[in-house]
């Protein structure tokens, strides 16, 4: 394995940080404490974590409506995220964006996105900027199985390939776009097969195996940094929760969910780490306690922050 122990522990922390954060959001949403839509990433943590593990702060990502995991994996600040989701003026976007629109340009997080398929063209632009300015930076474009059917996504794949841009397209195939199962929305089984149409590498990985995601994306990132162009990595995974909180999930069966819960990426990674002596049981407990304390701080910060003043409404429409 090419990863150091420290790196693996950091990845384990990231996965747990996402899970804890989102489990809390689930609770807050049920209690009516979060306005608007909340799309949870629970069950898919290995994808964002594995994909972002090869990135530096100057690399970029484009995210989706289901973006909390991507943001946390790219180093997003939990306090500012939580405050934004609560609609507070201390949040990442001064309360103007909310769960679906969080960005941190200093960390190369070019924004979560309310438009399915909105991220692909933006990732092409970020890749173009890196090539233009001759940096070695790479952009990871996260997009769902549903988003893979948008023209914007296919156009982005084509142009990134035609111009050999440093973009890694990470497809999160969780089997559904809201109620629509993959088999009803496309004729292919593997979205990665579409890479052939653009003459770029297309790889399928187990999206619940963080190391498999890491290995595949790491290859693609290296290739992109060398100027050899984009890749498409398809991560097969599953969302445990409804499409958004409040979705009754009438379109899928409990057995399917149970099968995927049995493939929970977090205990799978934990077992591997313990088996290989990277972590001990008390180490795991310590990490979880640390993360819980960190989350409590983020919540306290969000709770005590003020709501925006109505006078802020017209700020920031233009630069």
């Amino acid at each position, binding site marked *: 394995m090419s990863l150091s122990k420290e790196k693996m522990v950091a990845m384990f922390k990231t996965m747990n940080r996402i899970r804890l954060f989102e489990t809390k959001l689930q609770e807050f949403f049920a209690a009516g404490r979060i306005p*608007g839509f909340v799309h949870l990433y629970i069950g898919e943590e290995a994808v964002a974590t594995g994909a972002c593990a090869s990135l530096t702060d100057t690399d970029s990502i484009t995210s989706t409506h289901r973006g909390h995991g991507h943001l946390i994996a790219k180093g997003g600040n939990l306090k500012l995220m939580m405050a934004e989701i609560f609609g507070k*003026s201390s949040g990442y976007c001064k309360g103007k964006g909310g769960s679906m629109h969080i960005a941190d340009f200093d960390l190369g997080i070019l924004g979560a996105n*309310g438009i399915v398929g909105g991220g692909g063209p933006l990732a092409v632009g970020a890749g173009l900027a890196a090539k233009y300015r001759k940096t070695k930076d790479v952009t990871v474009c996260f997009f769902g199985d549903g988003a893979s059917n948008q023209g914007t996504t296919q156009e982005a794949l084509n142009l990134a390939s035609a111009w050999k841009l440093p973009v890694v397209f990470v497809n999160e195939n969780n089997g559904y776009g809201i*109620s629509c199962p993959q088999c009803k929305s496309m004729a292919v089984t593997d979205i990665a097969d579409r890479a052939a149409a653009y003459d770029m590498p297309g790889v399928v990985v187990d999206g619940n195996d963080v190391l498999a995601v890491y290995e595949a994306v790491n290859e693609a990132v290296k290739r992109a940094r060398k100027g050899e162009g984009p890749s498409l990595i398809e991560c097969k995974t599953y969302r445990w929760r409804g499409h958004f909180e409040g979705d009754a999930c009438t379109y899928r069966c409990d057995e399917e969910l149970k099968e995927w819960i049995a493939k929970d990426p977090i205990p799978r990674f934990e077992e591997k780490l313990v088996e290989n002596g990277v972590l001990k049981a008390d180490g795991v407990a310590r990490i979880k306690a640390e993360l819980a304390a960190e989350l409590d701080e983020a919540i306290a910060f969000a709770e005590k922050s003020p*709501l*925006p*003043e109505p006078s802020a409404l017209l700020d920031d429409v233009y630069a």
Partner: protein
Amino acid sequence: MAKKTYLQALNEALGSEMERDERVFIIGEDVGRFGGCFGVTQGLFDRFGEARVMDTPITESVIVGAAAGAAASGLRPVAELMFVDFIGVALDQLFNQAAKMRFMFGGKAKVPMVLRMPQGAGIGAAAQHSQSLEAWFMHIPGLKVAIPATPADAKGLLVSAIRDDNPVIFLEHKLLYGLEGEVPEGEYTVPFGQANVAREGSDVTIVATSKMLHTALCAAETLEKDGIKAEVIDPRTLVPLDIETIVNSVKKTHALVLAHEAVGFAGPGAEIAAQVAEKAFDYLDAPIIRVAAPFCPVPFSPPLEQAYIPNEASIIGAVKSIR
């Protein structure tokens, strides 16, 4: 008449038109067994099957374009976009294809399609899921624009839209879906281009669309207590626009306030104001006032969102500034 919600009225219109005309079908995302993101197509999949209630991939461009192509080929599609905001993805198919086919092809084509889209703010859905975009569609010759405010109009206008031989943009307000009202049973249509005088009055004309109609009616109630009698008019369709009813009202009241949730700048009220200024300038004893959203995207945080949406107080303030 029976009491029904706006959503039930829409559902009834879809169901009855599908019974009546087998060329009518539904196409959109999650409109099948799921019943649509807001539930408007609920039950129709079970009634008519997947050949007539079609779930598409996430592909707005093709939803709109396929509706136009199928309409030009003899069918009568009713397409749904989950939120009006997503029309951005499909604009070419709407503006350059569907809207222009008849004219460009010298009157040979007919594009009898309906594009249903919920719009409006108020549920914390933020900048990309809350807009009111009627002015965009009004600006494109070839499109008709219906914007029902009540359950009865929801039914009557949707039936008319489906029977119309042109592309019709049908704008629903997501906060009206649960609104109850009397809805005529059986065959019921509301003709396009016929405004609804929702309340009669002699002192000021308030023209309001969609959810703002209800806000305007509340404002009129309050104004009455202060001795100001407001006439409240809902155009119901913005294209065609029943300017005559509005002008006649202004000739009686001599004052005009326009209320809508869309952004004020170059918004739907600007067109109505301009036409009234052209046709009834001499009858006005005060400037025309617009009550509309400010010139910014829809914010997420509830206090900001509430400050964004025009309310009863803004309408009352506008009326009192001229009356």
